[in-house]
């Protein structure tokens, strides 16, 4: 009976991770084949040159009388091998959100960026331009204040604000709770405006259909190099504030080259939410996404 993973006799303490294949790659220096049948005959050589953890009692039925140099009577301390992906709980909830969106025919887009890239302005302009084509809802994520949700409501969409306090990202559980408050219509678009941060939000699946990363030309063209995870996990990159291009040292081609070297499928649209330049292309992209989930938008 292997106490590390609990395989063998029933009724013993076992923890399994449903997300992991049970292939018995022990995380310690302890690898053995476990193709055993019910009667569990170990006829293989067991050299026992692996290191024994003191809490790791390891009883085999075979008789080779090895003695562990460690004491086995150290109270009830037990080692439990988990091998759990730390983000697995979030991923499970994200999957539930995804099913909810599919059931209601809701297109969900997760907007991520550094603070100040213009996500909220892009959303305001999008809502004003498209509010007669499609119902839109917004979940706003910020550490503090209701300011963004108020801006969105003023533009004409229903919004709820999640304040993460000290948290630096939205997770799937927060989206689930926000959805309960939002009472979202079917056949609509849900924008999630994530907390301004290019690091942690990349790790948290919310159940969205597509992830949109926004950068502005005032930020520098090395952003994709500095924050590769975010650019690798996104589907579209909006380069905002194009009206400022004549005054800043921003090399659009370089940015696109850097980002595509790690994510060749990443799409790019250059926009200015302020002047409206390029926004048509963004609306067309939205319409294309809506087509696969709801129906194309009437632009």
């Amino acid at each position, binding site marked *: 009976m292997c106490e590390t993973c609990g395989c063998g006799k029933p009724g013993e*303490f076992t*923890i399994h991770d449903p997300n992991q294949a049970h292939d018995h790659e022990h*995380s310690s220096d302890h690898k053995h084949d476990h193709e055993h049948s019910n009667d569990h005959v170990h006829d293989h050589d067991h050299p026992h040159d692996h290191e024994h953890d003191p*809490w790791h009692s390891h009883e085999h039925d075979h008789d080779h009388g090895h003695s562990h140099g460690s004491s086995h009577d150290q*109270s*009830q*301390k*037990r*080692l*439990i*091998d*988990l*091998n*759990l*992906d*730390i*983000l697995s*709980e*979030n991923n499970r909830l994200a999957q539930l959100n995804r099913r909810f969106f599919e059931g209601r025919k809701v297109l969900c887009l997760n907007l991520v960026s550094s603070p100040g890239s213009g996500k909220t302005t892009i959303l305001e302009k999008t809502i004003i331009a498209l509010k007669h084509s499609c119902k839109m809802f917004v979940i706003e994520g910020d550490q503090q204040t209701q300011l963004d949700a108020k801006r969105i409501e003023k533009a004409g969409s229903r919004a709820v604000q999640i304040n993460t306090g000290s*948290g630096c990202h939205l997770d799937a559980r927060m989206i689930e709770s926000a959805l309960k408050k939002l009472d979202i219509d079917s056949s609509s678009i849900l924008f999630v405006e994530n907390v301004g941060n290019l*690091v*942690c939000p*990349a*790790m948290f699946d919310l159940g969205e259909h597509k992830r949109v990363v926004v950068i502005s030309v005032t930020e520098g063209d090395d952003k994709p*190099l500095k924050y*590769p*995870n975010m650019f*690798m996990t996104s589907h579209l990159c909006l380069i905002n504030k194009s009206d400022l291009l004549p005054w800043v040292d921003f090399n659009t081609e370089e940015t696109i080259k*850097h980002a595509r*070297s*790690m994510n060749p499928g990443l799409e790019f649209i250059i926009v200015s939410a302020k002047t409206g330049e390029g926004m048509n292309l963004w609306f067309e992209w939205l319409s294309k996404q809506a087509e696969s989930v709801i129906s194309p938008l009437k632009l």
Partner: protein
Amino acid sequence: MAVEVINLAEREADRAMAKTIREITIEVGDLSGIEADSFESALGLLAKDSILANALINIKKTPGTGRCNSCNYEFNMSQRMATCPKCQAFPSEVSGGQEFILMSLVIE
């Protein structure tokens, strides 16, 4: 992230009907997107008021490795965007070091 770890540890300790956790081991790959040192200090801080209050926290770092898309050469990779040291081709695929795993607990 530290909060996620504490929640997971709590859930697993509950399942095992543990009174306390003595030790926790977490694997953080160099290319996981988690900065191991800041994660460790955040976890250390938050642990004080949690089930991990008396636990020894082990962070096991695993190095990033990459495989060249052109010549298949495997090499140590300190950042995602790396050229192959053998044939200088670009880009290379990440082959290891993306782990962020709760490996084990010692419970009592």
